């Protein structure tokens, strides 16, 4: 795309948009839904009141392309964005984000969980993808991903998220690979073959979901006997809709969402202040009240209420049996593996 035309379009866009970030305001972008609502209550509104600044919110559907378009124009309308791990890595390499100045923050990098304090981003929360089933419909509960593959004991349709991500790892776990060796195996051509061959075993029983709410719907309507699902949505559904979904922890894959500051934002210092504000352990520990995502700062574990701790991916006993999504692996292979996945799923 012509940079000139893009810059021109961005300039026109900015001229038309009234709320460019000014000195007393911050534009923060989240992912919408329950998580952003929780952030609004715990972070945005208290921060606005305490500092006397105005916070403008926006929503982000994902993709480095959108962030690139914001930054390339030179005057991004967004200041702080919450991004996923691969967006963090790609954007940081491209220079889309301002490097975090940890001296300006109240917390040192070591106080965060491993992988949360990076060059361009600070962890916001930890979410995870796990095996889930409807306890109201299933008498004998599955206990591992190997059970997901066991179509004799648990006959019926299963659902997985469309795409290679998470599913290749789950397939290897079901095939007996320990959680800390997954990416060593997956990094080899034989490992990939093994994962796809494993998925082939249950291909006829699989349906694919796209949006995070779909697996819950599928479990509620008995469309599937087991599915992969985001752990936060499971607990929210149980709490608010009275469902009885259960997510098991062995073989869970977790990932860290981070706050980043877009290059070109005029509010870098204020953004750092917000990140400090949002990383406060007691505030981070309030997040699980709304949705069961884990805090990114270690000290928060002391403040998490006892009944919520088992539901969080960051609780030590859960983290032991989980694996962290390997960002570098997926950034390099997402294109080729998605193409390979589509070829496989069509066959």
């Amino acid at each position, binding site marked *: *795309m*012509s940079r000139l*035309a893009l810059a021109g379009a961005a300039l026109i866009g900015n001229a038309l948009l009234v709320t460019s970030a000014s000195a007393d305001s911050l534009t923060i972008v989240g992912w919408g839904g329950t998580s952003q609502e929780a952030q609004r209550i715990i972070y945005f509104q208290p921060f606005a009141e305490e500092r006397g600044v105005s916070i403008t919110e926006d929503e982000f559907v*994902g*993709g*480095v*392309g*959108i962030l*690139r378009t914001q930054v390339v124009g030179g005057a991004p309308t967004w200041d702080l964005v919450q991004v996923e791990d691969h967006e963090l890595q*790609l954007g940081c*390499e*491209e*220079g889309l984000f301002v490097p975090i100045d940890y001296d300006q923050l109240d917390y040192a990098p070591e106080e965060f969980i491993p992988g949360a304090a990076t060059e361009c981003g600070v962890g916001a929360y930890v979410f995870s993808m796990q095996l889930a089933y409807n306890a109201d419909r299933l008498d004998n509960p599955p206990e591992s991903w190997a059970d997901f593959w066991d179509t004799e004991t648990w006959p019926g349709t299963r659902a997985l998220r*469309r795409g290679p991500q998470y599913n290749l790892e789950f397939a290897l776990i079901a095939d007996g690979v320990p959680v800390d060796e997954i990416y060593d195996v997956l990094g080899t051509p034989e490992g990939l073959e093994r994962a796809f061959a494993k998925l082939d075993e249950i291909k006829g029983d*699989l*349906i*694919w979901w*796209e*949006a995070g709410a*779909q697996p819950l*719907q*599928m479990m509620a*309507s*008995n*469309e599937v006997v087991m599915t992969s699902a985001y752990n936060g949505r499971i607990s929210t559904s149980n709490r608010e809709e009275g469902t009885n979904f259960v997510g098991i922890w062995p073989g869970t894959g977790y990932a860290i969402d981070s706050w980043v500051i877009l290059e070109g934002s005029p509010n870098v210092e204020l953004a750092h202040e917000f990140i400090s504000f949002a990383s406060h352990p007691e505030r981070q520990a309030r997040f699980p009240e709304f949705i069961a995502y884990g805090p990114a700062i270690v000290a928060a574990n002391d403040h998490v209420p006892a009944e919520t701790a088992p539901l969080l991916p960051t609780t030590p006993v859960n983290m032991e049996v989980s694996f962290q999504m390997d960002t*570098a692996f997926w*950034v*390099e*292979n*997402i*294109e*080729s593996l*998605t*193409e390979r996945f*589509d*070829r496989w*799923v*069509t066959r």
Partner: protein
Amino acid sequence: MPDTMPETSTIPAAFNPAGSLRASLRRAEWRHRVVAFGLAAPLILFLVVVFVIPIIQMLTAAWVDRSVVDAMPRTAAAIHGWDRDGLPDEPVYEAIGLDLAEGQATRALAGPARRLNTELTGFRTLILGTPRQLPEETPESWRDTLIEIDARWADPGHLVTLQRAARATTDYYILTALDLQRNQADEIIRQPPEQRLFFSLIWRTLNISLSVTALCLLMGFPVAFLLAHVGGGLRNVLLILVLLPFWTSLLVRTAAWIVVLQSEGIINTSLLTMGVISEPLRLIYNRAGVLIAMSQVLLPFMILPLYAVMASIPPSHMRAAQSLGGRPWFAFRKVYLPQTLPGVAAGTLLVFMLSVGYYVTPALVGGGGDQMLSYFIAFYANETVNWGLAAALGTVLMAIVLALFVIYTSLFGLKNVRAG
């Protein structure tokens, strides 16, 4: 008096009967045209800005990719002359080494890393990882140093890819969109079967779109016929019912279909209770779900042009045909149907064009093998920021649809595509 009549050329134009009429007519026409153009100018400008320019940019992005040329200029200049006979000479490796070292400092390597990784997976770590291992002092032999850091710097496959990518224009994206590739000798060959993807994807997209168009025509024609032949009050009610879906969000409609079609949904439970089936039908998360949901969403686009054309057919034609001895079905076939063809043409064209670009509905209600081309265009544009391939796929899709449009209108005649 006739011999004192002055010559035509010395008389002012306004007094010249023959010439002035032509001239003033031309002037009047010119004025009309200027006024008409002036009135249409804002719209033309709008269309050019939001339509023509982005399409040209998309077409350009499909074959212009300067990410390697801009970020690694020395390499681009040096590797251009490599004849692929053995490994490149030392100057090429020196150029690569210097470019990598400089690019790391200026954060310029993300672009070429992404671009080269698209062509050959693994290149990303090669481009981003190598500079971190470069020695402090200038090495004696860049070639040995680089190959020692990573053996892939001696791999002809990687180097040929680098050479091809180190140009301002590339045919890689267009070729990939057509499941073609260049081999070592630079000939264009088909990709090996296990790598082919987009041809079947394009075929699947056209297949689904044609099926949806046919379904819409089958369902829409009777509804339009009813609308055109029913009395005023009832017609208004029916028209509102046809238009009602437009007032609901597309995602809401798709979600509603999930509720209706699922295993314990309305359709399955009623069929089960009536005893028609013993096991729930799989109506969703497969091709059936896609066709049902998309047809319902696109039905109004078929009904409205058809209704508009049918409403303009005088009812006297059918009566005349029958009074001349034609039986009702014969009259319908020979008199009524041909007159509805412009509406059919407009409706089918509209529905086809729209369904070719759909991807949200198939993503939510479709099975694994039901994703349409636009899903991948969105994937490359947003997730992997591979704008080249997204643009190439868009270009291919546009070319196919244009080709179909040309064939279609040459069958029907362009001026016969009317919506009323």
